[in-house]
Every structure is written in C-alpha cells, then in structure tokens.
C-alpha cells in the first residue's frame, strides 16, 4: 500500500511538473512581483527607511521570500482547481490510485515550483548587493523554515483548489497572504508603528519568521523568534492539512 502511494505520487508529481515546464510563465509571474518589490523598496523607498546598520536589501529579503511563497501557492490552487473542474480529478478518483497521492502530487509540485521561484528571487537579491557570511547550517535552517512555510500555505491552497466555483475565487484567497508581510517587521521595524498596529505586527506569524530568517543569515543569535516561528509554521501546517483533508473527504459525501 505504501509503495503504491509513493509510486502514484511520483507519477502525478511528474505530470504536474511537466505542466510547469510547458508553462514556465507560472514560475516567472510568481517571481516577478517579489522581484519588483525588491527593486522598488531598495531603490525607491529604501533611502528613506532607517533599519539601523547594514544594507536595506539584507533587511528586506526575508519578507520578500515569504511574499514569493504566498503568490506561488495561488498557482497550486489554480492547478488543482483546473483538475477538479476539468473532470480529470474524478477520473483519477474512480481509478485504483492511492487516495492521498492525488493531493500529494500537487503539494510536492508546489514545493518544487516555489523553491525555483525562491532561488530566482535570491539570485536577483545577490545581484542587488545582498551578501551573507552564514554557514551551511544556517542556510539549511533558512531552507527548512521556508519549506515548512511553503507546505503550510500549500495545504491551505488545497482548500480553495478543491472548493472554488470559479477561477477568480481560486486566486482571491492569496491576496491577504501577500498583504500580511506589510504589517510586520518585513519592510520596516515594528518599533515605529502606532500602538495597536504594532501589537498586531508583533503577534502575527510573519514577524518571527522574518526575524528568524534575517538573523540566521546575518549570523546573529535567533533567540525566541526561532521557536515561535517554528511553532507558527507547524501549527499552520497541521491546521491547514486537517482542514484540507476534511474538505477532501466532504467532497466524497
């Protein structure tokens, strides 16, 4: 049974990776908004933002990476929606295929596609002067947190992918996620924000995740933020997975 889950998942993963290869624009459009934000904030607003020492591009990059993932998962929802509305999802469901493989194929595709977009964004940041002396372990930790974040948002994206009635409904859910980093420490330090806004910024998941990533590649101690970031990511992942599976089972009622 386990072998057929992994075998079926591999076949379905290859299928949707082939979709991405044939429409690389989905990766480009995923990366283009964050790259435009990098350019805009570093070269236009950056001069007026005080982040206390260091290059602004170094300060900015973690938030932009999270925005990259948030816009990337819109395509995950879109690909799943296309399968469901086009009927091929039902065809797969009526075949002797491992049930979970149907969703895992899409989820793993989302991870691969988002990693490629993240690499593109990091490359642009490097060209703009982003530098880090962090070692392999710190970078692995950065990768690990981004991976957890991507998985959590991907399972969240599965829900509209399964339930949306129209293409607009599919992509709409990602807008708040893209907007969330703006009310966090991603672009400017939270210290300068008025009371209630600062409270929200300091207690929403983006701030600890951004701070952790930033400290990891700046070779600074991560402190409590690291644990808080991991708890947020794992918590989101568990909730999103449970909700997605419930939605999936309900579709079969």
């Amino acid at each position, binding site marked *: 049974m386990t072998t057929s889950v992994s075998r079926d998942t591999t076949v379905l993963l290859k299928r949707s990776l*082939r*979709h991405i290869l044939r429409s690389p624009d989905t990766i480009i459009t995923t990366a283009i908004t964050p790259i435009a934000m990098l350019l805009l904030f570093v070269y236009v607003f950056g001069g007026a933002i005080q982040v206390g020492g260091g290059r602004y591009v170094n300060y900015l990059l973690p938030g932009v990476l999270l925005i990259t993932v948030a816009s990337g998962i819109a395509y995950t929802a879109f690909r799943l929606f296309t399968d469901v509305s*086009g*009927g*091929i999802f039902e065809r797969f469901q*009526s*075949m002797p*295929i491992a049930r979970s493989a149907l969703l895992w194929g899409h989820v793993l595709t989302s991870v691969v596609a988002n990693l490629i977009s993240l690499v593109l964004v990091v490359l642009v940041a490097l060209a703009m002067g982003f530098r880090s002396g962090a070692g392999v372990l710190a970078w692995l930790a950065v990768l690990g947190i981004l991976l957890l974040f991507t998985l959590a948002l991907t399972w969240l994206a599965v829900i509209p992918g399964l339930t949306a009635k129209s293409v607009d409904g599919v992509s709409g859910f990602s807008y708040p996620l893209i907007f969330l980093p703006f009310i966090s420490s991603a672009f400017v330090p939270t210290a300068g924000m008025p009371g209630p806004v600062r409270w929200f910024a300091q207690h929403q998941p983006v701030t600890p995740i951004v701070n952790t990533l930033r400290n990891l590649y700046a070779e600074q101690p991560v402190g409590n933020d690291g644990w808080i970031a991991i708890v947020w990511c794992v918590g989101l992942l568990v909730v999103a997975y449970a909700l997605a599976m419930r939605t999936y089972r309900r579709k079969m*009622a």
Partner: protein
Amino acid sequence: MTTTPAIEIVGLTKSYGDQAVLRGVDLSVPPGTIFALLGSNGAGKTTVVKILSTLLKPDGGTAAVNGYDVGARPEEVRESISLTGQFAAVDEILTGRENLILIAQLRHLKNHRGIADDLLVKFDLTAAAGKRVATYSGGMRRRLDIAMSLIGDPPVLFLDEPTTGLDPQSRLEVWRTVKELAGQGTTVLLTTQYLDEAEHLADRIAILHEGRIIANGTLAELKRLLPPAKVEYVEKQPSLEDIFLAIVGHGDHRPVGAQR
C-alpha cells in the same frame, strides 16, 4: 448456470440537502451487455454513475459492481471499472500519447508505450499523438477520453452521456466503439438523453424519471408497453441527419448529386 450481475443496484437513495435525487433505484445488468439508462436532464443518471464509480456515497440501498459492494470494497470496484464522465476528462497540457501513458502508469501496467500506441491506432489518433490535447477537436477529445478508459481492460465501463456535444460523425464512431467493446465481453452502462442512441446501442433500456426506474426491459419489451402499432402509410422523408451524412460523404451513404 447463474452468473453474478456486472452491476446490481437495490433500493438506492440519494438526496442533496432536502432534494431527493434517487428515490429507490433497482437495476441489474448482466455481464457483457450494453445497458442504457435513459432520462431527461436532472433525472439522476449522473448520480447513479457517480455512486457506482465510488465518487459519491449513497444515503441508502446497496450497489455492487462486478460482485463488489461499492461501500465496503471500493478498491476492488475501482479495479473493475472505468469511468468516462460527462465531459472529456483529459489533460489538456499533455499530448494524446502522454495522456494514455499517464493512465497506464497509474494502473500499474507494464509496456506503457505499447499500450498507448495500440490505442492511438485503434482510435485514429496517431497523427495527433504528439500534439497537446488543447488543440484537439471535441470528437478527438472524446475518442482519447474513451481510449483512456479502456486501458487495463476493465470489465465494466461507465459512459456518462458519451455523445453529448459531438458532431454526427463522431457520434457514429463512438457508437461503433461501444458495440465493439460489448462484443468483446465488456459490460457497458451508458447514460443518455438521446432516445435513438439507446435504441441503437442498448441490449436493455431503463428509464429513470424523478429518481425512480419507471420502465426496464429490452426495446421490444418496452414497445409492448404501448398499444399495438397502427399501420399507416407515410412518405419517407430523409431526416436532416441523413442529408448531413450524405452531403459530407460518410459511411454507406452515396454523395447526393448536387454538383452533378
């Protein structure tokens, strides 16, 4: 000798919210026959097919395919069936050949390419095999769709309105394929809203109306439900379909002499 029915439905009920779609459906389909489920839109045909193909759970009653209960043994049911849904369920971004290979892989068969190539020939899709399905016509999609359903030779085939939206030629091709399949021993349950389709293809016909089977039998048996035919002499006019097929030159119709 008694044989297990390919499909056996007893007292099947299903509601969506407070709207009852199936109100106690009974059906039995012997293996190797073509069975047409006839009904207007919204009669519950698709719901029956979805329950039989394990996509939907019934509220009450039992349904078994190839001897396996759909609720208790869904895995075995899925091994026994293939579903061709109301709309061609093909992958638009992949090519025709890739679609067939994909299904062969998911059915854990060997020799994917050989299976794909055989079906491409059989369904007259070899020339388009390397093109993306997005460029296919409606008829080509449906042919590919049915070809995908035949991979792995499942003993029971569900065709949900297989010719809806097809042009007359593609329709005849689908009919020919269905007859061939039944000739080889496959059981076909087909839903349709076209009376002539049921008349042309089916060994047995059931009429589903407002969630119940209101008539069930061979065409001859159904005809006996009506008063005996009255003999009338009517001049035989060609139907528009006859004219269309004659002009585009299909089958054994000779071209009409418009350009003579």
